[in-house]
Structure formats: structure tokens, C-alpha cells
């Protein structure tokens, strides 16, 4: 029992330490509360750091956004998406990802498994088709209902319109007759009569314009009523679209299990080869040669097919992973340059003076400017990227190969490096330059050589600032990357946003808002990771971060 108590305490303190290092301090009162430590104080802290933020998010999302902003702002393709619509878009994006994975699996299935799966799919298809049919009927009937209700709404307006048209016509004819009579009664040389005629014509013209406007107003009313959308109909239609999309997916899934299945195609080709081989034994001369050649050709087709992978469209999580890989590639590339240069800048004033113009001029350059330049350079270096040995080498790497590194990826990574390295460089230079004088005096008394000074004193003492810089760099790099991917069409989150923008579908806006949250959350995670590293290399009395 006593031992148990001690281990519980130990767990508590290690938990609290982990929370402290990771910077997730809002969890601290939860742990303390679980251990019954000053419940009132902890509850107050929980209220302050968990409940209040949650309420703020709730109010912002459901009250201010859904209740006010959505109704106020309109886009070309309708209203802004409500929060529930954004969530269902997220589900749709996620579903698409799962579907692609399923398709890939289906493509590679073989043997009995394939047959079992095929049967299951056929059953599913029939049930979904039934559901779709029902939904279609519901849509049709609802459409009838809506049509009828609209027609009943339009009818009185239409009648009003006709009446107005008639009365306007009558009045216009009367005015025309009056004008004609007046003009005939005029005597030449009578100035006042001429003026009166002009006035009458002007009044007639003004009345015409007024009448036209009245007519147009009612016409518009009619078209608005005709275009009214019934919410019920929209809902039922959405259901229909959902089922039709599922059906389309299941049909592709089925073809991937049957006619387009990898093992099936290979089996078929193999069967053809064995048939050819039998034929070959009965042939001589030119015919035999021809057969033999076609057998060899089929064999090469098989070997290619065996290596082939399912070529589906890229989905969000794949793009997210590729973006993260790209940002780290650029980040490491940038740090690899920035840290040594920063150290030399901090050590040597002359070197610092040499670097200052470059830093001052290149630092403010936007990624939008860097990217096209880098892209041209990278494409120049890899004129035929698919066949380039370096690209092939990258494609065969175990974990990275899946992400198909191409010049656009490399250019995005280099852009990230160029835009993010400045923070690390400045912080490293500052860290090295602001090293404790006493420590340097110790180094002088101990007569440490250059490398001992560098690795035992200078770098360890500037590590906290270097990591502060790296943290800023990674944040900047993540922001830059999205823009770079958008420009370079490197498969990633930026490209996802751009594709949605170009699509202009009804749910594109909602999908882009989903990306806002994905980008934000990943940026937050990257930042937390760097905070942990920063805490681990820090020591008491370390120079403060900037």
C-alpha cells in the first residue's frame, strides 16, 4: 500500500514534468485535481484555461459565425458555409481518402479474397442503387410539390402583371391620341403652343419610363419566386448526390476487383503466353519467329504490370504528409546553411560585415519571388526528371519514395529554406556573440583550442537561442510552404487549396476552410515539438529568447 502510494506520487511528478516540458500547461490542473491537490484552486484554473477557451471557441463558431457572419456575407456561389457544412466537408475529404485507400487495396487483391470482396461489393451496389432510386423518386416527388407551390405563388403575381400591362397599354394609347390631336390643332408661328407640345412629349416619355420600371419590378418578383429554393428539396437532393457518389465509387471499386484487377490481368496474359507457347511448338520459319517475339513482348508487359502501382488521385492526408516532408526538407536545408554561417557571424566581426549586405537584401524577399527563380534553376538541373538517376534514387528510398519527389517538391523545399533560414541565422549569431564573458575567460585560462572552444563552450551556450531561432524558422517555413506549393503545383496542401479554388464547386469554400484548420493544427504541433527541443537544450541563466 505504501509502495503503491509512492509509485502514484512518482507517476504524478513525471506527468507534471512532461506537461511542463511540452508546454501543455492547461493539463497541469487536471492532473493535480485527479490527485486531489487543492481541488478549489485546480477547478478555478481549469475554468480559466480550459472552460473559458472552449466557451470562446463555441461562441465564435456557433453564435458569431453561424448566426451573424454567414447571413451577412454572400459569395458568388451562395452563402458562406455554416460550421456544420464545414464539418461535413471535412468528412467528405476524409471519405475520399478512405475510398482511395480501398481502391488501391482492391487493385492489388488476388485469389479468393478478391472473389469474396467482389461478391460483397455487388451486394452493396444493389442496395445502394436501390437507395439511390428511392432518393431519386423522393426528389422527383418533392420537385413536383415545390413546382406546384411555386406555381401557386407565381399565379397571382402573374395576374397582377397582366392587369398592369393592360392598363399601361390603355393609358399609353390615350396619351398618344391626345398628343396627335394637339399637334394638329397647332398654328405655325405660335411659340407658346410649340413649347406646350414639347412639354407634353417630355411628360409622355417620363410616364413611359415609369411604367416600364413598374413592369420590370413585378417581372423581377416573378423570377425571384420561380427561383426560390426549397430547403426540403435541397436536403433530399444532397442525399441523392451522396448515394450517387457512393454508387460511382462502388462501381469503380468493382472494376478494380474484376476487369482492372492487377492479378486478373496478369493471369490473363499468362494464359495467353501458355497458349502461344503451345502454338509455337507446331510452327516453323517466319511464323514461329513471330510467335516467339510476341511471347517475349507479353512477358515484358507482365513484368511491367507486376511492378505497377494503383494510380489514383492524391487525397488530403497524403498531401498533408508530403507537405510536412517538404517543410522539414527545406527546414533542415536552411538550418544546415544558417547555423554555421550564424556561428561565424557571431565569432568574427569581419565575416559579419561581409554577410550583412546579403542578409539585409535577401531577408525581405517574398517566397512568391523566390519560387519561380528556383523552379527554373531546379528544372534546368533535372531536364528529364523521370529518368534522372538522383530522382530515381529518391524514388526508391524506403519511406520517402512513396511521396514521389520531383523538381516542384525540391523547388518548394529550397524556397522554404531561403525564406526561413534568416531567423536561425540571426539567433545563432546573437547567441554566439552574447556568450558569457566569464566562460570565454575560463576558455582562455584553460588554453582551449578553436574546436574545443566551439564545441564545448560556444555551441552549448548558444543552443537555447539557436533553438529559439529554429522554432521561428519552422513556423515561417510552414507558412511559406503553402504558398510555394500553390505556385509550383507541388502535390501538397497548397495545391489542394488551389485545386479547390479552380474547381469552384459548391463545397469548395467549405473545403478551403477545413484546410485552414488542418494547416493551423499542424503548425501548432510543429511549434510544440520545437518548444520541447528548446526546453531540453536550455539551462539555468540561458540567454532569453527573442
Amino acid at each position, binding site marked *: 500500500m505504501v509502495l503503491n502510494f509512492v509509485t502514484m506520487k512518482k507517476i504524478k511528478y513525471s506527468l507534471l514534468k512532461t506537461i511542463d516540458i511540452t508546454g501543455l500547461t492547461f493539463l497541469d490542473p487536471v492532473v493535480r485535481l485527479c490527485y486531489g491537490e487543492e481541488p478549489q484552486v485546480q477547478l478555478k484554473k481549469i475554468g480559466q484555461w480550459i472552460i473559458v477557451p472552449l466557451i470562446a471557441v463555441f461562441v465564435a463558431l456557433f453564435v458569431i459565425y453561424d448566426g451573424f457572419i454567414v447571413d451577412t456575407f454572400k459569395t458568388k456561389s451562395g452563402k458562406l458555409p455554416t460550421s456544420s457544412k464545414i464539418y461535413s466537408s471535412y468528412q467528405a475529404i476524409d471519405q475520399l481518402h478512405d475510398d482511395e485507400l480501398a481502391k488501391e487495396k482492391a487493385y492489388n487483391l488476388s485469389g479468393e479474397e478478391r472473389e469474396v470482396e467482389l461478391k460483397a461489393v455487388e451486394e452493396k451496389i444493389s442496395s445502394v442503387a436501390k437507395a439511390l432510386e428511392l432518393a431519386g423518386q423522393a426528389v422527383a416527388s418533392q420537385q413536383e410539390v415545390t413546382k406546384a407551390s411555386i406555381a401557386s405563388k407565381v399565379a397571382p403575381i402573374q395576374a397582377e402583371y397582366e392587369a398592369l400591362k393592360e392598363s399601361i397599354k390603355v393609358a399609353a394609347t390615350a396619351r398618344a391620341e391626345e398628343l396627335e390631336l394637339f399637334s394638329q390643332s397647332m398654328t405655325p408661328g405660335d411659340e407658346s403652343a410649340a413649347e406646350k407640345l414639347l412639354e407634353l412629349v417630355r411628360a409622355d416619355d417620363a410616364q413611359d419610363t415609369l411604367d416600364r420600371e413598374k413592369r420590370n419590378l413585378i417581372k423581377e418578383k416573378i423570377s425571384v419566386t420561380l427561383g426560390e429554393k426549397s430547403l426540403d428539396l435541397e436536403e433530399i437532393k444532397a442525399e441523392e448526390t451522396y448515394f450517387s457518389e457512393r454508387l460511382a465509387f462502388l462501381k469503380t471499386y468493382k472494376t478494380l476487383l474484376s476487369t482492372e484487377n492487377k492479378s486478373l490481368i496478369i493471369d490473363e496474359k499468362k494464359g495467353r503466353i501458355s497458349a502461344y507457347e503451345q502454338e509455337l511448338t507446331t510452327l516453323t520459319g517466319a511464323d514461329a519467329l513471330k510467335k516467339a517475339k510476341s511471347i517475349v513482348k507479353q512477358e515484358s508487359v507482365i513484368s511491367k504490370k507486376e511492378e505497377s502501382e494503383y494510380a489514383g488521385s492524391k487525397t488530403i492526408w497524403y498531401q498533408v504528409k508530403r507537405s510536412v516532408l517538404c517543410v522539414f526538407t527545406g527546414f533542415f536545408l536552411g538550418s544546415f546553411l544558417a547555423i554555421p554561417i550564424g556561428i561565424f557571424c557571431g565569432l568574427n566581426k569581419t565575416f559579419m560585415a561581409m554577410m550583412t549586405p546579403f542578409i539585409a537584401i535577401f531577408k525581405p524577399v517574398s517566397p512568391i519571388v523566390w519560387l519561380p527563380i528556383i523552379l527554373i534553376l531546379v528544372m534546368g538541373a533535372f531536364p528529364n526528371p523521370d529518368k534522372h538517376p538522383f530522382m530515381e534514387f529518391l524514388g526508391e528510398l524506403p519511406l520517402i519514395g512513396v511521396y514521389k519527389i520531383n523538381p516542384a517538391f525540391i523547388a518548394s523545399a529550397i524556397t522554404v529554406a531561403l525564406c526561413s533560414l534568416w531567423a536561425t541565422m540571426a539567433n545563432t549569431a546573437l547567441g554566439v556573440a552574447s556568450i558569457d564573458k566569464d566562460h570565454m575567460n575560463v576558455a582562455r585560462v584553460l*588554453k582551449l*583550442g578553436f574546436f574545443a572552444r566551439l564545441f564545448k563552450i560556444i555551441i552549448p551556450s548558444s543552443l537555447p537561442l539557436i533553438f529559439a531561432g529554429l522554432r521561428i524558422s519552422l513556423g515561417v517555413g510552414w507558412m511559406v510552404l503553402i504558398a510555394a506549393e500553390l505556385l509550383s503545383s507541388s502535390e501538397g496542401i497548397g495545391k489542394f487549396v488551389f485545386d479547390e479554388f479552380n474547381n469552384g464547386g459548391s463545397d469548395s469554400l467549405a473545403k478551403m476552410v477545413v484546410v485552414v484548420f488542418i494547416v493551423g493544427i499542424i503548425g501548432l504541433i510543429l511549434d510544440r515539438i520545437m518548444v520541447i527541443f528548446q526546453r531540453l537544450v536550455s539551462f539555468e541563466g540561458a540567454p532569453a529568447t527573442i
Partner: protein
Amino acid sequence: MITKENSQFVEISNLIKEYPNPYGEDFRVVENFDLKIKEGEFISLIGHSGCGKSTVLTMLAGLNEISGGGIIVGNKEIDGPGPDRAVVFQAPCLMPWMTAFDNVMLGVKNVYPHVSKQERIQIVEYSLSAVGLGDEMKKYPREMSGGMQQRVGIARAIALQPRVLLLDEPFGRLDSLTRMELQDVIIDILAKEKLTAMIVTHDVDEAVFMADRCVMMSNGPKAGVGEILEIGFPRPRERKEVFDDPNFFAYREHLLAFLEQRSHIKGEPRVFANGEILGFMDKERVEVIRRNHEKVS
């Protein structure tokens, strides 16, 4: 019998330290500082704040540039810092990212490049045990008290096996109990290693208890050696014996009197003690000290 070489193991002659002054003549902090130190002798340097005590010590350490004059240590003029002159700073100046062991090893690795790893470890362990940290070698500075950190600083200095140990107000930031402990640690080590040492201090008791000679510096600017007081206590010294000795108070009084009187007189011509006690003191007190001296010798 002390040979000439031994009696002038450290020779500081006409030492000058100037700082540039943009609005006039260069600012002279130390002028014509002369001192000869015997091998194995312990010198304490005492004087008012800002009189240039630490400047002299850092120049001897080679950390501060010399503006004029010269310093010879063991027949060689010094040129920059070196491991033959180890320094214990006022702040422990440990590397916070290294354990006590690694902090000491930092210098050892460099000073004994041809020694095997095992022997280096032995040197580090020996010097840490000598300051009483045999069991705390794997601790980081943040896990140690100020006194323990300063012990590591001392261990780091003696691990270099220097010929001269320079102590720059090493106990200035410690409480009096820790200070006494560390004074004893230094006295023990010096007795064992037979090092030549110089300590800069504000503490009159410390100056008398630890040193063979107290060098009192005149006030700056243009500070120099004001007076030198020979402390006649035999070594090894025991704290209780020294503090109970009637001479202790006489020496103490003398130092205090010097500090009190000289604090108002600037640029006084230097008076060398040479065993004889001179200075601005009332005759009675001089008499007391002289008598005590005779008793000791």
C-alpha cells in the same frame, strides 16, 4: 636557503595599466606596481574597492593586457593566459551544461594531451576529492549550492597542476560559514601542492589568516603597492590557533588602520615594509606589533 631564482619566482616590475580616455590623458588605474613573490609563497592583495587589485591579478593571469612594465613567472615573461597560472574567479563560472566532472575534465584534456584517458580521469577525480566533492562528481551546477560550485571552480584550477594559483575574490559571494570551509580547503591544498598563490580579497581576516604577506594597495587612480605586511604565523595553520594568537589582532588592526587612513590619501609615495613596519600609525600600535613580531620569530 632561498636561491635568487626562488625568491623571485614571480616578479612584477613597474606594472602599468591604462585605459584610453577620449577627453584627455589616458586613465591610469595602476602605476609602477612592483612586487616579488617567492616560490611557494601566499600573497594576499588588499585594498579599497576599485583600487585595481583585480586588475593586477587579471594581468598576472594574462586575461588583461599589460600597458607598461612586465611580469616574469619562473624566468619567463608572460604573454597571455596559460595553464601554469590557474584562476579561480569570483563567480564559479562553471559551464551549466556540463557535470562537475566534465567541467574539470575540460581543462585537463587540454593541458595533458599525451596522458591516457584513465590517467586523466584519475587527475579529475583526485582534484574533485581534494575539494571534498568525491561523491558529487556527476552533479550539474544547477544541482549544487554556491559553495559547492566554487569548490568545483577550485578543483578545475588545481587539476591543471599550475605553478601559480590566482584567486580573484573567490569567496566574495559566499556566506561566512561556507567561506571558512573553503578557506580551509585552499590552505590544505596549498600545503599539499606547494603552490605559489595570490588572493585578492576585501576581507581583512581572510587576508591575514591565509597569506604569508599582505600587500596593501594605495588608492587609485595610479594605485601601487602601499605597504607590505609580513604575517609571521607558521604553516600549516590552524584556524583556531591563528585567531587566538594576539598577533592576529595586531595585524588586523594594522590592515584596518591602513585602509582607514590611506583611503583619503591619493598617490602617496610607496613605502616598502621589507620586514620593518612603517606607515602612518600611532607609536603605541607600532610598538605592540613589533613586540609581537619578536615573540613569533
